[in-house]
């Protein structure tokens, strides 16, 4: 269970989170959405203790995370950009995480699940973005934690891995875990999410089920509903927006 109250965070003059209140109770699969720069990653990193809030409180399983670290045992985290030390091999990286975090046997099945065997002895610096993301996924899912946080999990994945990832996420949900996903792929939200938390300008603008979102903003699918939301309340509400919901291309762009 994650309980966030009055969370504020600024980076210099940029006030990213302005008093976020959020309570997340397992089980559930919650999509955290929002336009670029709305604070999704900051929120997630605050939960992980990588970003230190200016004000506000975050509790995981009833205990404040301030200066705590043991609670991270409860969390599997998939970082947004898979950045790894360049000079070590995939096998070494997995062994290192196991050494630091504890023994697990799930890595073996996950490696074959995502087809990573041919890459085990390659250096991480030489891997493609998609392959690196698969390594990222293995490191994230090889521990069986009650809370799973996925920041843009589909980035760079091929269709086969994408299907498998979705299946894996669904299994984790059925096991009764609390799963948070941020993504820009609305089909993924449509397919997986039970609830949507929409961040806008540092606050939670909408929270509800996918059906409620569609109903409130009169969209046929999540994508249209979000577009309607943004045009009604968000950064696109001012400016050249035609009545049919599609922005006109500015004339200055059409001249050439």
């Amino acid at each position, binding site marked *: 269970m994650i309980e966030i109250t009055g969370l504020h965070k600024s980076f210099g003059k940029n006030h990213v989170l302005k008093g976020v209140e959020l309570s997340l109770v397992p089980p559930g699969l919650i999509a955290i959405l929002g336009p670029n720069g709305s604070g999704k990653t900051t929120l997630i*990193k605050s939960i992980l203790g990588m970003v230190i809030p200016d004000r506000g409180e975050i509790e995981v399983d009833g205990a404040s995370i301030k200066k705590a670290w043991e609670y991270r045992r409860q969390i599997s985290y998939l970082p947004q950009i898979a*950045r790894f030390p360049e000079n070590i091999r995939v096998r070494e990286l997995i062994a290192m995480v196991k050494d630091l*975090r504890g023994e697990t046997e799930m890595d073996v099945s996950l490696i074959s699940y995502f087809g990573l065997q041919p890459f085990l002895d390659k250096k991480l610096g030489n891997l493609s973005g998609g392959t690196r993301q698969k390594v990222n996924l293995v490191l994230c899912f090889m521990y069986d934690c009650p809370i799973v946080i996925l920041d843009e999990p589909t980035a760079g994945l091929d269709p086969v891995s994408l299907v498998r990832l979705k299946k894996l996420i669904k299994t984790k949900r059925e096991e009764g875990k609390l799963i948070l996903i941020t993504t820009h792929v609305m089909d993924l939200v449509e397919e997986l999410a039970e609830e949507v938390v929409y961040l806008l300008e540092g606050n939670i603008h909408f929270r509800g089920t996918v059906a409620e979102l569609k109903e409130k903003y009169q969209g046929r699918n999540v994508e249209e509903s979000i577009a309607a939301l943004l045009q009604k309340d968000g950064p696109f509400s001012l400016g050249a927006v035609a009545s049919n919901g599609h922005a006109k291309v500015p004339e200055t762009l059409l001249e050439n």
Partner: protein
Amino acid sequence: MFKIFKYSFFDLIRSRWTYIYAGFYFLFTLGMLMLSSDLSKVVISSMNVVLILCPLIATMFGVMYYYNSREFTELLLSQPIKRTSIFTGQFLGLATSLSVSLLVGAGIPFLMFGVFGSDQAGNFLVLLFNGVVLSFIFAAISFFIALKNEDKIKGFGLAILVWLLLAVVYDGLLLLGLSWFRDYPLEKASLIASVLNPIDLSRVMLLLKLDISALMSLTGAVYRKFLGSGVGMAISVAVLLIWTIIPTLGIRRVCLRRDF
């Protein structure tokens, strides 16, 4: 913390730069020993190199290692590991690998030439001790500066600036001050000034150990009196320890407040 230390240490000890650094000490010391049969002269020459190079290389490695291992750090931060363990472990790994380079690089040639059978054994050990301490001090300072500055160029610049201040500018100002006020008795003031700077303090400790303080006239006599006494020696070692501990505590403090 020990695991982080282990990974940082083995990562660095496999690095090309560590070999180059150790190799330089090895070749330099070996060359000096072959040129001169007088071990005490070689210790003095090595001292001049160690006192400049240990702080400089520790500063540069400290900043570079911090910025280059950011990915590794970010990975560690999301794991159930204490923040202070991550950064203290990395710093200790770095400082230890630098010290090993010095001990192996400068130590082996002296051993080959039988330093322990000679009267220079004590001086040799003091030299290595000071080199190791300086590596720790400057690795801690530069790691602290890098941790405080997100911007690579700024961090690098500041760290080099600190080295420059302590290794070069400090002495210059000290000499300038001494020549301006030469009509006054300055032995105590210059003694205090030397003790406060870790590089100067190391130099004075070694010079007195090497028994060439007679070259330093009256000031030398005052130094001799101070450092020759048990209290003086204890104060000197304490100052070196404080120089190591303060930036290390700084690392622990800053790392708890940083965002990643």
